[in-house]
């Protein structure tokens, strides 16, 4: 282990770098020879679902904090939620959260049941959660006004945490490429090579 990376979010998990220089391991420390990545499919699929679900948890925290705030904080002579522009944003947060939840439930059921669409669905859940919850976190930040920017208020932490999910366990774009390669194996998934 050479260092701990200081990250913008999810900072209570310590991300690190490792260097192997003629690192000797007894042969019996082997788990899988040559086909390790294929064998880890069970890990990878569950991993995408778990990634999306953690992301959803951040979104739920954003919603809970914001719903509480806008129903108690008074501005312009009334609590924030009575300002219609605020109420609309809160509804948008709730809708995105429910949509993410629905996809996670469908995808996790597919993985549990070994459904043929499970590879596509778990990548869809992961990438969809990352972008939708980022929007939820942005609403949370904005609805808190200046307080949203204050470290001691804790909303900016949720925003930073949400941002990490855009690339953790695959970037948004790579996730989409995986989806389309899996959906259209004969065209998008086929080795392109020179097209003549």
């Amino acid at each position, binding site marked *: 282990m050479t260092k701990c990376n200081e990250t913008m979010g999810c*900072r209570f998990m310590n991300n690190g770098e490792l260097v192997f220089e003629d690192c*000797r391991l*007894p042969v019996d420390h082997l788990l899988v020879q*040559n086909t390790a*990545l294929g064998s880890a499919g069970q*890990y990878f699929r569950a991993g995408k679902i778990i990634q999306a679900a953690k992301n959803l*948890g951040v979104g739920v925290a954003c919603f809970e904090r914001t719903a509480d705030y806008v129903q108690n904080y008074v501005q312009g002579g009334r609590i924030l939620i009575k300002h219609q522009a605020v109420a609309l944003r809160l509804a948008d947060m709730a809708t995105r959260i429910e949509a993410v939840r629905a996809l996670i439930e469908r995808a996790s059921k597919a993985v549990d049941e070994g459904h043929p669409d499970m590879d596509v669905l778990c990548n869809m859940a992961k990438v969809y959660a990352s972008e939708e919850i980022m929007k939820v976190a942005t609403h949370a930040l904005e609805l808190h006004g200046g307080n949203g920017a204050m*470290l001691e208020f804790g909303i900016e932490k949720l925003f930073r945490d949400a941002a990490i999910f855009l690339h953790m366990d695959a*970037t948004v774009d790579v996730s989409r490429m995986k989806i389309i390669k899996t959906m259209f194996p004969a065209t998008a998934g086929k080795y392109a090579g020179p097209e003549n």
Partner: protein
Amino acid sequence: MIHADDGSLSQEQRLMRDSCRAFVDDAVTPFIRSNWQRDWDMSPGERLPRSILEGAETIGIRTLGVPEAYGGVDLERETEVRTFALISEEIARGDSGLADKLVQNWKVSILLREFAPKHLQDKWFPRLLADPQFLLAHCLTEPRGASDRWLPYNVPEAAMHTKAVLKDGHWVINGRKQFISNGFDASLYVVYANTDSSVGMLQGTSSSTRPASR
């Protein structure tokens, strides 16, 4: 609304979700809210108090994926992924970094459960169970390739740069892994390395366990 409750959860799932939610409300969120400066503590080992992982241990979620024969918690297999999703969401509702820490333990435990020879399971599962601060990590990402490795096709050029070769009865590993979750403080790593550079990544990558060198 907002929380998971579509009426289809099993009793096990409901119990686990409720105990996770209580743990988050009673221990995690109060810590996070009243210690926001700890997020910026530049001594990474000190950021999260030991009591938080001990709390995760108390409600039985630190060693999910470890077979019951080793004293772990085996979830109902037919709904295992759904249950992991429920628990992950609840913990991340308190802190997503804490959820990341725990998730690596679950995922790597499942890998060990599925693929590790018995002598490795006999060695590592008891250690994981004995120490609430014991963390596992999974080393895939490299400076020149991560999720984008899946974009090219399954050809030798896309293989991992970290290599393992058999020499005098040992695997000798050379290379670099970066952006590894729990990479700083894990006690055991699962490391992926190229073991056959003449074939694609799916046919030429091997995994092995590497204890922390601390």
